[in-house]
């Protein structure tokens, strides 16, 4: 195992813990009726966004999914503006007009979550194409899913990225379900990384619950892209901790599978890394968690006190549509 600084491991843990706490808080706000519509928690998949984004530079692009809060946080989003967006307030990232499923933070290169499964793969390939045409050293990372990898545009876009050698990193977050459909009912070859091999793309399968494993592979992939040897396909295997969205109890998920993945919890693994490799004490870890909790509380208070966009402001925005 490579040498990691305590600071770096603390930063990873802070992100993992922030995503976990953010989603728990989001579910509470949802139950209170403050968040409406769709809410797809990232809980159980935190190591993927965290590990991949740790390998990126600020100038790189990220394309996110309907399960996108984790990507936004891992790119360093401001929690106040995130919660405000989820509550539909004018101080949110999209002025409350996008909501959970369309959250975007253009200032951090996060080009947005997407309500259309698979649609972000060609968009991300296009972002990579743009960077290449402009001669800029930027990598474009597309987070997609086992469901997204069955959509036609996934194959077409990956093929394009390959034939044009684009600096694109495609990450399949294989949580083994598309809503309630288990992966083996949606595809015969459930090792999704193999799809890239047929298209001549460097492709690997990794443990999506291990933040350092994700980070190492992402780092290598990003370096490869920067050298003009992209794209790269990473299949990060993981599992949801619950149903598809907050209103789905996920009863179809076998208990022993959930238990297995909870025993291999990405946040716990990250915490152990920080303690074992970073030598952090329980107290130090607790203080990271406490700081996150405070930040989150402030964010919730900020969002609750923010107004919604007025109808007048809204009409001005859509003028000319």
């Amino acid at each position, binding site marked *: 195992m490579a040498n990691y600084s305590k600071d770096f491991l603390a930063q990873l843990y802070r992100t993992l813990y922030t995503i976990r706490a953010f989603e728990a808080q989001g579910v509470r706000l949802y139950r209170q009726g403050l968040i409406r519509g769709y809410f797809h928690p990232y809980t159980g998949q935190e190591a993927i966004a965290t590990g991949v984004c740790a390998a990126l530079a600020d100038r790189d692009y990220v394309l996110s999914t309907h399960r996108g809060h984790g990507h936004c946080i891992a790119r360093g989003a401001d929690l106040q503006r995130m919660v405000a967006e989820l509550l539909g307030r004018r101080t949110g990232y999209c002025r409350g007009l996008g909501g959970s499923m369309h959250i975007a933070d253009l200032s951090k290169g996060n080009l947005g979550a997407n309500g259309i*499964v698979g649609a972000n793969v060609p968009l991300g390939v296009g972002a990579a194409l743009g960077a290449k045409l402009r001669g800029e050293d930027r990598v474009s990372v597309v987070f997609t899913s086992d469901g997204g990898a069955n959509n036609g545009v996934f194959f077409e876009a990956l093929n394009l990225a390959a034939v044009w050698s684009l600096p694109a990193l495609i990450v399949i977050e294989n949580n083994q379900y598309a809503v309630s*459909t288990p992966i083996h009912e949606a595809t015969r070859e459930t090792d999704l990384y193999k799809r890239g091999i047929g298209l001549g793309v460097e492709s690997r399968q990794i443990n999506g619950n291990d933040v350092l494993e994700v980070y190492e592979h992402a780092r290598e992939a990003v370096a490869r892209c920067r050298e003009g040897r992209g794209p790269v396909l990473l299949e990060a295997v993981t599992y949801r901790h619950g149903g598809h969205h907050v209103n789905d109890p996920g009863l179809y998920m076998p208990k022993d599978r959930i238990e297995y993945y909870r025993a291999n919890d990405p946040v716990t693994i990250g915490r152990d890394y920080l303690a074992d490799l970073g030598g952090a004490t329980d107290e130090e870890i607790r203080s990271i968690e406490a700081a996150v909790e405070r930040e989150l509380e402030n964010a919730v208070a900020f969002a609750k006190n923010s107004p919604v*966009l007025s109808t007048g402001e809204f009409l001005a925005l859509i003028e000319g549509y």
Partner: protein
Amino acid sequence: MVAIATEIPTACRVMMYREALNEALREEMRRDPKVFLLGEGIAQRGGSYKVTEGLLEEFGPERVLDTPIAEASFTGAAVGAAMTGMRPVVEILFIDFALLAMDPIVNQAAKYHLMTGGVGRVPLVVRTQGGAGGCLAAQHSQSLEALFYHIPGLKLAMPSTPKDAKGLLKTAIRLDDPVIFIEHKSLYMSKGEVPEGEYLIEFGQAEVKRPGRDATVIAWSAMVPKCMSAAEKLSAEGIEVEVVDPRTLVPLDAERLIQSVRKTRRAIIVQEAVRRGGVASDIASIIQHEAFDYLDAPVEIIAGRVTPIPFTLTLEQACMPQEDDIVAAVKRTLGRE
């Protein structure tokens, strides 16, 4: 198509829109082994809106297929199966995702009959669901009927009640042409009387949902209940509007709409879809042409605001026609503002 004498049955029972759709599918699948279903999460889960609940149990996995998230391909496959004589009913979870399947629907299914000189048929039904009102934001709230209305070769149904939903879906399955069957997400739990026993509702038959003498309000899908409650309000003020639901937009029962407008001399068309390039504009042009001499006021159109649907609850509502807008429009046509 076998015409079973339409509607007007004796006994009725109250059921939900989604239950009525379920019953239509069940009856047609029992009747014709060529009918089969495909879509995302429709078999084991019974569909996101529970329309296909219990059908896997009765008809088995050969006839109720869960698909991957691959709208273009499973819709294309349904078109192919239909070309060979099957009667597939595709479920596309949200009409927004039907945009991924526009080639099989528009370039393939809609054109096959003509391209084969009238020999080939595509007896396909695409069931899908649209509309706003659930804070589901821009990519899950659209009203896109105009896109399909525009395409020659497609039939288009948009039922507003459980009774219409069942009768029209059964007919859609028996038609030899591709049918786009648009349900509304806010109607699935709505209840209404549904006739006992078998019945069909022919396409191209508008229905007067409420008779009246003072103005004609034309609406379909989820705008019908809104217009009905606006009509109640107006009635309290002594204004009696006639609410007419075309039920299918293709074919459109223009005759029945015109008949009503000639009687009331005023027309208000209400659509949830955005105003620009909408079906309402087309109906308005038909009315001004066919009933020009009868009109006592310009035809009014109440429509959705021209914008993607925003997530924010208050703004989402501000983008959709409201009861008060309908009431005001009716009064405008009567010069009673």
